[in-house]
């Protein structure tokens, strides 16, 4: 396995954050803001998608949860990539990566992050996707 060392954790890009659980939005939002990112949070996945479709170039990266009541994370990935195929999308899941992989549709997210994920995992994944 290739190991990539990324020291930089902060950035100033715009992130669309989608999770139906407010405590998750709260903490991930706080972490991202603290490291310089501009965060737009949504706890309703349909609202989030509408927001993205209205102004797809207002965001540089999307972080979405997998299991949500209205629109699941895999569908968000498909819809987002339909509008902007090149935008990096991180899918967070409380299921195993194997199950999550089996659940995602034809359009794959750029990164699957397993919950509970620490801030370093999250921030490094963001930098890796934005810089490569």
């Amino acid at each position, binding site marked *: 396995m290739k190991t990539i060392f990324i020291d930089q954790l902060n950035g100033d890009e715009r992130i669309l954050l989608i999770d139906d659980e407010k405590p*998750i939005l709260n*903490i991930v939002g706080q972490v991202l803001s603290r490291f310089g990112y501009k965060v737009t949070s949504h706890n309703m996945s349909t609202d989030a998608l509408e927001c993205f479709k209205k102004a797809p170039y207002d965001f540089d990266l999307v972080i979405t949860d997998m*299991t949500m009541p209205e629109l699941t994370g895999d569908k968000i990935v498909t819809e987002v990539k339909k509008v902007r195929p090149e935008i990096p999308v991180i899918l*967070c899941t409380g299921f195993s990566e194997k199950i999550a992989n089996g659940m995602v549709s034809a359009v794959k997210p750029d990164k699957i992050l*397993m*919950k*509970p994920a620490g801030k370093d995992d999250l921030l490094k994944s963001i930098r890796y996707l934005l810089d490569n």
Partner: protein
Amino acid sequence: MTDNTADKILDEPKIFTKEGLLEVIDALPLAIAVIDSNRAVALANKSTYLFTNKDQLQLIGHVGGEAFGCIHHDDVPEGCGFGPECLKCKLRTTVLTTMEQKEPQHMVETVMIFKNHGERHLRISTLPMMLSGDEVVLLAIEDITEVKKYEQTAMEKEKLSAVIQTAGAVCHEMNQPLMVIMGFAELLLEDLPENGVQKENAKEIKKQVERLGSITRKLMAIARYKTKGYLSAEIIDIDAASDLNLNESD
């Protein structure tokens, strides 16, 4: 007035000639043998020769355990029926009960270990009868080892799918709050001054959340049904059941 003739006939031991009985039992797919009052094999059908992989000379006239190849026959000099294990032998007690009580025994299940084909799960049935003037026991042995194995596999498969479903649901629900606790612990770690006791405390919170995270990951990777003893009960052995080794994941 009631007519007891039919009952009386049933109560009487069945009367057969050796030739007549052999003709009947040779046509049956079960291993069937006649055991005499000395516990020796008096008659055996074709399926019994197949089951024991022995010929007439090796079977007829030999005591049950020796004839069938029970591993305990060699335990004591007197042979079958006299070893310490023989007291527990269900085949022996079933035949003896049939003989003493003159009552048939149905579908008695037992496990026996044989010299030439190892541990087998057997289902035995007996019938007391008269054969050429002697009181004997007709013994039918069905080898249900494969059936038992299949039943066991099917049951474990069913249990496994229930365990996987439960583990998946529990993990998913637990990983959400764990992620939240992890995040807040990390923010605290950023804010607290170095070398303080509070910083150490926050580090410990993070460490324990990571520990829980590795447990939920192992639960997610459960691939087989394995249990271990826990006090007086049985619980799932997460390490043995999971495809994910804690050391590998670290």
